[in-house]
């Protein structure tokens, strides 16, 4: 059956007129390179820096002493080594979960207040989005190396892998329904086979990212949230273990790729 489906799909390609698939790919790569050169990502990094250094919450302190895994206040390479196990929280955390932890422990903010508006829009990006841009920018050139040694890191990876292939929701879908087979697309969008190293690497090395189609800066937590929305599931809770596990699975799969985000995407 699979071969039959693939045969029909390639027949579809053969029917395409004029521009060859090869040329199209090359031109689209050129487009992507040019938009990356002229990307406003730096503005988000700039605003994120201001928020990182801004005293906030009942304690009126900034996040400058936040320990993202490399020591208090160390930003260099921190994002590339997330998610990882944090002894103080006894939990595997991704960037957003760790930022929430610091907002609570350093700034004295409640989870409710800190998560009131985690996903922004084109007119008003969220604090999380700005901060992600700023923190991630300090990992450019650093190879992705999410934690794999601690038992809770192993557990997070295994859970993420199981979630990736788990079919449920009103439409019986798993992540693999769309990201499980090579050379497939939704509408015109190419779908990366994310459980495979060669596909996961370039994707995980460029999130979080600015999307030119809607002028918004998006985090990995948003990416997972929006996939579940489209898969017709209920909503994953922000920075919950399930969402972190998926990021752990994907980042471990992409291990070794030099981080080059925040990215600029279509």
């Amino acid at each position: 059956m699979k071969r039959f489906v693939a045969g029909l799909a390639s027949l579809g390609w053969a029917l395409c007129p004029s521009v060859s698939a090869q040329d199209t790919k090359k031109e689209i790569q050129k487009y992507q390179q040019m938009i990356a050169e002229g990307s406003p990502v730096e503005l988000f990094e700039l605003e994120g820096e201001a928020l990182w250094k801004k005293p906030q919450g009942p304690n009126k302190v900034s996040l400058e002493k936040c320990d993202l895994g490399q020591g208090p206040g160390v930003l260099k390479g921190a994002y590339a080594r997330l998610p990882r196990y944090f002894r103080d929280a006894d939990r595997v955390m991704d960037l957003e979960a760790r930022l929430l932890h610091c907002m609570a422990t350093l700034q004295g903010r409640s989870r409710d207040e800190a998560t009131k508006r985690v996903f922004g829009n084109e007119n008003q990006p969220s604090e999380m989005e700005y901060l992600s841009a700023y923190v991630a920018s300090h990992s450019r050139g650093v190879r992705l190396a999410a934690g794999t040694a601690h038992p809770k890191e192993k557990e997070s990876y295994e859970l993420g892998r199981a979630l990736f292939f788990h079919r449920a929701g009103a439409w019986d879908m798993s992540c693999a329904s769309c990201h499980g087979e090579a050379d497939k697309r939704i509408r015109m969008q190419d779908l990366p086979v994310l459980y495979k190293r060669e596909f996961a690497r370039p994707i995980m090395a460029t999130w979080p990212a600015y999307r030119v189609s809607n002028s918004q800066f998006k985090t990995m937590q948003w990416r997972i949230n929006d996939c579940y929305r489209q898969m017709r599931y209920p909503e994953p809770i922000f920075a919950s273990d399930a969402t972190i596990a998926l990021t752990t699975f994907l980042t471990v799969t992409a291990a070794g790729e030099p981080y080059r985000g925040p990215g600029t995407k279509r």
Partner: protein
Amino acid sequence: MTRRSLLVLLGVLLAKPLAALAAWNETAFGAKSAADALKSLGAASPAPSTDIVIEAPQIAENGAVVPIEVSSNIPGTTSLAVLIEKNPFPLAGRFEFKEGALPFVKLNVKMGESSDVHVVVVAGGKPYVATREIKVTIGGCGG
């Protein structure tokens, strides 16, 4: 509001008198055809030139952001305008290069649909043009 945006606001108030002097060609930007826009810019019927270099992808995945890089190798270039034939208002921008600037600019434009993009250069008081087609929407079977 962050401290930075407060600073920006301050900048807004202080910078006002300076920028208020700048001119903006309302007729040219309001023109509904590239030809009318060129007339308003005083650059009607430009001569084709191969000394205008347009660097742009043939296919843009998204019309909201189409990167275009243009430069002029025509001696005495003083200005450069970018026009998108099929946009409701074709004139996207006009750049005047004074002593000290090279006739070069890279910018991102919006394109409603696939269209010819014209770059019109004025050099020694005479207009010249180069044209490049850019397709919007992803390729493959796309238009």
